Structures are given as structure tokens and as C-alpha cells.
């Protein structure tokens, strides 16, 4: 019987059925659940690596040792792993190796909307692109076959709407992969110039063979249409939008393999239709290829380079009518994401706001520190950039600046920036926001939490010892629920004559093991409506009937608001 399955869950099922044995990933929306779901199969060893580069190298090592392996990441994670990516293309693999990259068009939870398809062409690696959960399962399995047949890692590219949509899936059995015992092969696996020069022509020849494969595989297929006035080339979720908008009206060339592209197939299809339209999100990757082949086509001139497409957008551009909805003539206030009630980051950001610090930030829930009313973050670039950029900022004469970085992000790529501060000696204050979990992606363990992906005991890196070992003498731990302690620490460390690390430590309020205090309550007789407590942007606090009011279904009694009240209006609630 078919089951309703999320794309990422189906991908994990594909890993299982393909006989994958080792999976190493770093969490990143929308890719996280692939590895989380894979970890539910005992036959697959799964782990969270400190970052994507480490994950990819781990997967490569497992392939070398003879086991089918996997690493998964979000689009920006592939930038971190780009170094091994480009050279594992040269070495090839031993047992099958599959890399998943999940793009996030429209930036639901990302800092950019880069198009990862360019990596396949740049690194000369085959890339498959499923268009629903069933294809996610099937393509992951087939990726391993392609990997072993052509001696290459294979990239499977997902996007938010494939990764986080559920559709019906037929599952199969697990098949253990053929054995690939490790064999010493210096010429293949030691990429120094003399060896790499001999591998490069093999890579080019492999691309040629894969192009031939692309011409004949059923992964690329044509849906016939009733009217060849328009022919559409598309892939991924855009295929679904096209079919939704057009049904069987126009012929569609659906590409499941996005690199290398099947030149002859593209030419034949173009020759069979009067007007050729390429429907793809973000860049004109397929379109540019078609143009290079000399095929007249339209694509980006219709659909642009930004965000996600949809059935109505496709219909509109192809002159198919749609019925509009009803619109309310009313100013609807936006509802942006906010730090949760009881979030340990809130107290710290309030402190930084009051201290008028220039805060160089990083990637995580705490990026919300940039949002009003806290407005206490002035830069966010990529994982780890807070620490390295602070060093540069201070070397260039910057003043009163701090870096803030979460525990998981610090492990990912903050450590090397900290090493630069220790080595090249800028007078910098780095604040590690240690909430004992990887928060934004939905509570994944990391090297500082002492637990592995399954929640079992694991190695635990001690942040204080690590910083001291790098040479920092000023390392102090504060409780972000204690505003005075935070304020003292920030002012003292900014005044100190040497670099320091402040660890703001308190577990995420959403963790199951965290015990909450009773919700607070405002005594309306004492409240003078000064709104001091409103400066922390807590979703549990609002002004109701001219007085501060606590929503006791949200409040976890963290007490930060209480410390801002000059009139002792907050008291412990009844619940």
C-alpha cells in the first residue's frame, strides 16, 4: 500500500533500500530530516558532523573503505563542502557515494537563494533532481547505481517544496550493496599534481559517457501533449506547476537528470514544437544550455530569477486564465518569526542593545536578535563569520563591537575564526550563545551537547577548556536570564586589555528536559504602563487595557521582564 511520505523521509527510505551504510551530515533547512529519518534505520550508521566539509569527507572515507555512503546539506552547506567536492570528482569513489543538496528558493529559512545546479557543472558531477517523494526514493537508489557504474559521486538536488512536501510512495525492500573491499590505489586517491593530471582526462571522458546515459535513461522523459504550439522543458517542482497549469495540453520534456544535459534530446524536443519555453526556478541553468546549443527558447524573460514559481505564475505567463480570490481591503500587520517566550537569547540581546554594542552576528535562531524591538545585530553573513569579521572590524579600528555565535555554529566554523583572534591578537569579545542544542533546524545534537544523533551518550567538547587551550585567559560564563550579570560581563570584557570569550549559557526553552517556572502575572494596581517590559519583544507580553499583560499560556516564568519593572508589578502567577 502507498504511504504519504515527506520528500526527505522518502529520500531516507531510498538510502535504506539502496544499502547505504554510513551517513554523515550537518543539519540545515530544508535538508535536515533526510539524515534524521535515516537514523531510524539501524542498518545505516548516521551522525551529525561538525560541518558539511567534515561530513562530505567522512562519507568519502566510508566509500573508500567499501560501504555505500551519504552526506546531506542545505545549499549554503555545499559552499562549505565545495573543497572536497571538486576533488572527489577527480578521485571518484570505491563504493557508491551520494551527496544531497537542498536549495531554498524564496528563502523560507536561508540567507540567500543560490542555485546549486551550478555546482554539478562546475565540479563535473552528475546531478539528479526528483519532482516528488516517489522520485526522491527512486532517484536516491538509482544515484548509487550511477555512482558505482561511472565511478563518481552523484549529487541529488532537492528544494524546499520537494523536501518538505508529502506525497504517496511505494516502498521496497533493502538490498545490501555488492562488496567493494578497500584496495590501495595511490594514483587514484592521492591528488597531487602528477596524479591529478592523469585523473582530469578521466573526468572529462566520464562526463561524455554520462551525457550518453542522459540521452537514453528514463530519468529524462517526454510527456506528450495535444498541441505543439508550445513545448515546455522543466524539472523538479516546476514540473508539477506546469502539469497543474497546463494538464496534457502541451508536450513536456521532464528532466530528472540536470547534469550532464542530454543535448540530442533537447534538440529533438525543440524541433518538435513551435515555441520552446523553459520553466525553472532561480537561474536559467537549462535555458542557457539550450541557447548554447543554438536553440531559440524563452525562460527567464518570462519567469525571472527570484523566489519560487507556482501554478498560477506558470499559467499567467502561458496565457491560461485563472480565477482570482477575494481580497480584504485592510492593513494586515505582518507576523514575522520571533524569539520564543523564555528564549535564553533574549536577555543577552537586551543587554547588548542597552550597551549600544555593534553586534556582528551569525546563523541561527539568534539571528532574530536583529529584529525590533531588540534590534541588536548589525551583520549576518554566513556560518562563523561573526567571529572572523569581528577580528577584521577591530583590526580596522572598530569600537565597542562584539561577536555572537551559537554553540553549534561555533563548532561548525567559529573555532577557526577564534584561532585567528588568538593568533593575530585583536582585542575582541566573542560571545558564545550556548543553548545546548542546534535550535533553528529543530533540535539536533552537536559536539558540545554530549549526545549523538540518536540521543545516546557521545563525546562532549568543553567550550571553556577549548577557549583556554587557544590561549584566552578571560573566559567567563553568564546566565542570560540574569540581566545584571550579563551587563557586567559585557562592559568589563569590552574594557579589558585583552581578548575574551563570554559563554552565555542556558538550554533552549523548548527542550523537553527544561523545567519551566510558573508563568508570571502583572498586578494591574502596581503597573504604571511605563512599557519598560515591552522593550524585550517577548511574545507572551502585551499591553491590554492600558496595562502590561502576561499570556499565561506562553509565559515560562523566565523573569527577564520582571527585572525591568521598577514598580514590582510582576508576581508569580497561580498556575
Amino acid at each position, binding site marked *: 500500500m502507498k504511504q504519504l511520505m515527506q520528500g526527505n523521509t522518502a529520500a531516507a527510505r531510498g538510502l535504506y533500500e539502496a544499502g547505504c551504510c554510513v551517513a554523515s551530515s550537518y543539519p540545515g533547512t530544508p535538508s535536515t530530516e533526510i539524515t534524521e529519518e535515516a537514523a531510524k534505520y539501524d542498518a545505516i550508521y548516521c551522525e551529525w558532523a561538525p560541518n558539511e566539509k567534515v561530513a562530505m569527507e567522512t562519507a568519502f572515507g566510508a566509500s573508500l573503505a567499501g560501504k555505500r555512503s551519504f552526506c546531506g546539506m542545505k545549499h549554503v552547506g555545499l559552499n562549505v563542502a565545495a573543497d572536497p567536492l571538486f576533488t572527489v570528482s577527480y578521485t571518484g569513489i570505491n563504493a557508491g557515494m551520494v551527496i544531497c543538496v537542498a536549495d531554498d528558493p524564496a528563502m523560507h529559512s536561508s540567507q540567500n537563494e543560490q542555485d546549486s545546479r551550478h555546482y554539478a557543472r562546475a565540479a563535473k558531477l552528475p546531478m539528479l533532481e526528483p519532482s516528488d517523494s516517489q522520485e526522491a526514493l527512486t532517484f536516491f537508489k538509482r544515484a548509487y547505481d550511477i555512482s558505482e557504474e561511472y565511478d563518481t559521486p552523484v549529487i541529488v538536488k532537492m528544494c524546499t517544496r520537494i523536501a518538505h512536501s508529502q506525497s504517496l510512495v511505494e516502498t521496497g525492500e533493502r538490498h545490501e550493496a555488492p562488496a567493494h573491499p578497500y584496495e590501495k590505489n595511490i594514483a587514484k586517491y592521492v591528488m597531487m599534481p602528477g596524479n591529478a593530471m592523469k585523473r582530469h582526462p578521466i573526468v572529462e571522458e566520464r562526463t561524455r559517457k554520462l551525457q550518453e546515459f542522459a540521452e537514453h535513461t528514463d530519468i529524462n522523459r517526454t510527456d506528450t501533449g495535444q498541441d505543439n504550439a508550445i513545448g515546455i522543458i522543466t524539472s523538479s517542482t516546476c514540473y508539477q506547476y506546469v502539469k497543474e497549469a497546463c494538464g496534457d495540453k502541451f508536450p513536456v520534456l521532464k528532466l530528472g537528470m540536470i547534469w550532464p544535459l542530454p543535448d540530442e534530446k533537447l534538440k529533438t524536443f525543440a524541433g518538435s514544437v513551435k515555441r520552446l519555453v523553459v520553466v525553472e526556478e532561480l537561474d536559467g541553468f537549462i535555458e542557457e544550455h539550450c541557447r548554447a546549443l543554438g536553440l531559440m527558447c524563452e525562460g527567464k524573460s518570462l519567469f525571472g530569477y527570484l523566489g519560487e514559481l507556482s501554478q498560477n505564475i506558470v499559467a499567467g505567463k502561458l496565457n491560461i486564465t485563472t480565477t482570482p480570490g477575494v481580497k480584504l481591503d485592510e492593513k494586515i500587520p*505582518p507576523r514575522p518569526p*520571533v524569539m520564543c517566550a523564555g528564549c535564553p537569547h533574549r536577555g543577552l540581546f537586551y543587554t547588548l542593545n542597552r550597551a549600544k554594542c555593534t553586534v556582528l552576528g551569525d546563523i541561527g535562531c539568534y539571528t532574530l536578535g536583529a529584529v525590533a524591538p531588540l534590534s541588536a545585530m548589525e551583520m549576518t553573513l554566513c556560518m562563523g563569520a561573526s567571529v572572523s569579521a569581528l577580528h577584521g572590524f577591530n583590526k580596522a579600528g572598530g569600537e565597542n563591537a562584539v561577536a555572537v555565535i551559537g554553540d553549534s555554529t561555533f563548532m561548525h566554523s567559529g573555532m577557526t575564526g577564534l584561532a585567528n583572534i588568538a593568533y593575530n591578537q585583536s582585542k575582541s569579545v566573542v560571545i558564545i550563545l550556548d543553548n545546548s542544542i542546534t535550535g533553528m*533546524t529543530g533540535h539536533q545534537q552537536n559536539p558540545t551537547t554530549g549526545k549523538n544523533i540518536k540521543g545516546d551518550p557521545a563525546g562532549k567538547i568543553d567550550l571553556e577548556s577549548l577557549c583556554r587551550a587557544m590561549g584566552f585567559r578571560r573566559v567567563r560564563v553568564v546566565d542570560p536570564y540574569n540581566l545584571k550579570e550579563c551587563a557586567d560581563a559585557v562592559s568589563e570584557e569590552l574594557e579589558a586589555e585583552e581578548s575574551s570569550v563570554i559563554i552565555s549559557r542556558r538550554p533552549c526553552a523548548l527542550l523537553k528536559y527544561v523545567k519551566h517556572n510558573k508563568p508570571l502575572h502583572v498586578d494591574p494596581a502596581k503597573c504604571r504602563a511605563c512599557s519598560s517590559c515591552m522593550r524585550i519583544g517577548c511574545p507572551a507580553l502585551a499591553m491590554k487595557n492600558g496595562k502590561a499583560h502576561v499570556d499565561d499560556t506562553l509565559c515560562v516564568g523566565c523573569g527577564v521582564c520582571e527585572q525591568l519593572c521598577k514598580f514590582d508589578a510582576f508576581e508569580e502567577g497561580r498556575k
Partner: protein
Amino acid sequence: MTTKNIMIVGVGGQGSVLASKLLGHLLTAQGYDVKVSEVHGMSQRGGSVVTYVRYGEKVYSPVIDKGQADFIVSFELLEAARNLEYLKQSGQIVTSTQQIDPMPVITGAMSYPENLLAKMQTLGVKVDALDCVKLAEEAGSVKAVNLVLLGRLSHYFDDITPGAWHEAITSCVPGKFIELNMKAFALGREA
């Protein structure tokens, strides 16, 4: 049949995940092709959340576009209004009357629009509004708002028997919460 579209809208953390899981299970068991789509990550942190549930003979797109929703199931009034444009002209809104201030309202930068229900009705929109929080508390937990809403929604599905809904609840809810959720469902259905 043409594809039917149900949008579930609310504020991150209100329980739309279980609601969509339950609908997905129910409609799959009815033999339909089904797609359910949601977005995880940053938007879940107290922001607006939207889940799309689509079913029919053959469903292509995982998302619902403007003017396409047969139903909008809303956990919060402002979110129903925000997504009104997605409703078909003949569509039905089932909403909780709960109001949760978004951050721009909390900080005083904007105000929460008044009389949203009446304004939507003036446009000719069919709105079924009920105090789901009160009914959920009556069932035993404020967290059961999702089942109150589904109970109300079930009222509009002549072709799906109460037994099928009950089977979906039993399959999707942990054992110790089944009774509570059944009660919440019944209170919503009969409201």
C-alpha cells in the same frame, strides 16, 4: 473529480502539524491521491505558518495558489484574513476566534484590525467562526484546538463518515490522548 484544496493557517506552535497529518492520513485512506506541503525552519518561531493539503484523482502541485482553496482552516483570526486571497469565491472558512497579537502590534507599531469577521462576511465570504480555545479547554486541554477545528471541518464533508475521521484520529494521536482528542473533535463537529 477536480482536486480539492484545504489550507491550514495559524501561528507557529499552534498545532497545525497534527492537523495536516490527520487530514493526510484520512484522505489517503479514502483512496485519493494526496499532497501535503509545509515549510519548516525560521518561520515556525511564532511566525505565520501555512500548510497546504490537496487531494483528488491526480494531484500535481504541492501548493495551493490564490483563488484555489476550497477551505481555509484557521487557528487565528488575523491569519484567516491574511490568507483570504487564497480562498475560492465559493470557498468556506472555518476559523477559531482566537486573536494573537503579532510583534508589530505588541510593540505598538501597528494595531490589530477590528471586526475582521464582519469585514470578511461583508465581502460575501462564508465564515464559520467558533471559540475553539473554550471548546478545547472543555475537552480537557487548550492544545486540542486543532481537533476542535477538524471536528468543525468534518461537518462539511458529507462523503466522509465519522468512523473514517475516528480511525484517522486513532492512527495519528498517541494512545493516552485519543479520548481527549475524540472529545475535542466531537465538540467541534457539534458546535
